[in-house]
């Protein structure tokens, strides 16, 4: 069905094909994985969710992009930019890194037709290193010079009372923690005009919180899986290459980590190292690497007996270079599958932890926490607050699972397991 091995072209076709960029194994896998419409929808959904996670301060915010405050209390009329002024450090750092990723992807896409492979690869590396340096430098600068501004002015009321005009508000006029303190009648309300998904027990807009939660879910999934990936790939590679007694002991270690029920292991870490979003990311990474290690180990066990590895060793290359520059690119593909399922698992576990009350701290919004706040269901059950986050977790996890399954089918068309 999916022919992954490129068929050998006949002699007459060779010149034309050589002028094209050769399709690598990766290209083939990705091309055949993305073919089904379900995968296309999933990818689109996840891209949209990532964009939402980055741009959310500009979408759901109680402060207007710009507003003219009228003259009062001996003050001049003045044009302010409250939304930009109150962007937090985190917002800016996320924006910087997202910008860097977009830059790298754009660069890849723009140079995709370049025929000189070596030059292309060099340029690609140069761009990526430059981008990483730029991002780190900017992050440091933000960390030093930017201070979070707490702006408690109620601009909606200012505009309503005629003390300000010319305000341009974000599409959703509430942030994740904005309540309506003087309006008791707007607490705990079902969907209505103005609050399309209703309000929660503290008068906060459910839709705004739902959208803000995407940031927590995506960042926890992303960072934790990168940590898990680094640990897992490194351990699996070393283990698979050396095998023997190292392998025997290391696999016992993996078994030991896997034997303890995941959530209980995570709870132990949470109880020990405290609970905040950074700790959750690290903990999910530190407990979730075994799958990667198994996959990479299996690949390396297969690869280590191949001739090109022996040739690389015989040529006197250092071991790390053989492992990570020669063997890893050939053994990394199954890890994509694992990463996809791992991301889904991280989103589930993060929401579970937040649901239990040991995840992100309030008032930061997270889907799990919203489900938790939807009520002690036995007494008050705010279904309007429960349906959205649950659906969001479900769709996100499902999207990752669909992609993971498609990748697995593309890599191994005969395997049928979930």
């Amino acid at each position, binding site marked *: 069905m999916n022919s992954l091995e490129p068929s050998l072209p006949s002699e007459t076709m060779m010149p034309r094909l050589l002028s094209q960029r050769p399709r690598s194994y990766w290209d083939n896998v990705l091309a055949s994985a993305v073919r089904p419409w379900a995968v296309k929808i999933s990818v689109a959904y996840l891209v949209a969710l990532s964009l939402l996670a980055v741009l959310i301060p500009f979408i759901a915010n109680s402060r207007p992009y710009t507003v003219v405050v009228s003259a009062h209390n001996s003050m001049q009329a003045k044009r302010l930019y409250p939304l930009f002024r109150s962007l937090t450090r985190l917002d800016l750092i996320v924006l910087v890194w997202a910008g860097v990723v977009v830059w790298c992807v754009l660069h890849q896409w723009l140079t995709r037709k370049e025929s000189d492979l070596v030059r292309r690869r060099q340029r690609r590396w140069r761009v990526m290193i430059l981008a990483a340096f730029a991002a780190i430098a900017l992050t440091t600068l933000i960390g030093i010079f930017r201070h979070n501004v707490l702006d408690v002015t109620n601009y909606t009321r200012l505009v309503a009372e005629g003390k300000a005009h010319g305000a341009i508000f974000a599409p959703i006029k509430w942030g994740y923690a904005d309540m309506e303190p003087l309006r008791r009648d707007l607490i705990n309300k079902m969907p209505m005009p103005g609050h399309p998904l209703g309000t929660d027990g503290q008068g906060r807009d459910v839709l705004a919180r739902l959208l803000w939660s995407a940031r927590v879910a995506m960042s926890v999934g992303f960072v934790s899986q990168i940590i898990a990936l680094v640990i897992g790939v490194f351990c699996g590679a070393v283990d698979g290459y050396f095998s023997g007694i190292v392998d025997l*002991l290391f696999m*016992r*270690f993996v*078994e*030991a*980590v*896997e*034997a*303890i*029920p*995941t*959530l*209980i*292991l995570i*709870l*132990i*870490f*949470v*109880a*020990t*190292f405290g609970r905040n979003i950074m700790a959750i990311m690290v903990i999910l990474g530190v407990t979730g690497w075994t799958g990667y290690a198994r996959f990479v180990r299996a690949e390396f066990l297969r690869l280590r007996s191949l001739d090109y590895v022996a040739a690389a060793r015989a040529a006197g290359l250092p071991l790390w270079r053989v492992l990570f520059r020669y063997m890893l690119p050939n053994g990394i593909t199954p890890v994509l599958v694992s990463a996809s399922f791992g991301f*889904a698992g991280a989103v*589930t576990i993060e*929401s*579970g932890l937040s*649901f*239990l*009350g*040991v995840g992100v701290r309030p008032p930061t919004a997270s889907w*799990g926490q919203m*489900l938790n706040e*939807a*009520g002690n*269901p*036995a007494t*008050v*059950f705010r*279904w309007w607050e*429960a*349906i959205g*986050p*649950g*659906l969001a*977790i*479900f769709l996100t*996890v*499902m999207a990752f*699972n*669909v992609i993971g*399954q498609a990748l697995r089918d593309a890599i191994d068309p005969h*395997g*049928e*397991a*979930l």
Partner: protein
Amino acid sequence: MLNYIIRRLLLMIPTLFIMSFMLFAIVRFAPGLAHPGAGGTTGKLNSRQAQKEQELEIKRRLHLVDRFGHPISVPMQYWLWVRDIAEGHFGMSYQYDEPVLTLIAQRLPVTITLNLIATVIIYIIAVPGGMLAAVQRGRWFDRGFGFLTLALYSLPSIWVGSMLLGFLANPQFLDWFPAAGIHTTDTSHMTYFQYLGDYCYHIALPLVCYVYGGFAVLSKQVRAAMLDNMRQDYVRTARAKGVGNWTLTVRHIFRNSLLPLITISAGVLPGLLAGSVIVEQIFSIRGMGALAYKATFGHDLPVLQMVGLVGGIIGLLADLITDLCYAVADPRVSYE
């Protein structure tokens, strides 16, 4: 065969060792070890001398110092900790001021019973489902089934639990099921069968939460195993000699597909144990998961450590039993 069993058992020893050391190390190097509750004394002490005495006593009980107050090396601490566990001293809970062993002995049966019932139900509904999907391969039933299993696999149990509780056990909507616990508060007047009925009534919703995820995983495995066997030569032979469709599916293919099902059973149980933290929290069931949850909030490290250890040992045992079953069930696989 005997060799294989012995080797398998020997391999378990280092795993057990590493796991216990990991749990020991996490808690040993955590901040706040010499917690006042650690010694199991609740009385208030006023004089500085008495406080020092108590601290020393706590350290002694945790094997941080020997009885003369000299510090003990970490490997020796670990050894003493293991010896304590072997003797049945699991330490004292900070929160409840009770031995951890008592707490676990109270809670473990609740969780294990629920999980076993869930596992049985999973097998009962997943096996026919997977078989049907395999037989109908490529037709609408199979496609719908594939989508359904993927969707069920992705459904977060926190959502399912909240919605079930919110809509079906809530006076606001449908008050059909009890909202908490595994039996009515007062069961003294009930006959045995009434009690059993009461129990089933209470665990219905939690069971749904346990079952649907495992159903997705297992039925997918059944389908894969069936399809794998359908490609084999012996199926063609059987068909050629005139074996009927039904007999072929049930007697020939299904029997040979049973092996992977044994393997997966090990994966189901630890997964359910981890899931029990959330399900027990939603439905207010006082089991191991709820114990771990409360302990997390109370910084009750000895309890968490032991819950982790017990969970880990159950996981390892499930693994072991699976491997042994596999070895017994499949004479084609040779183990030297």
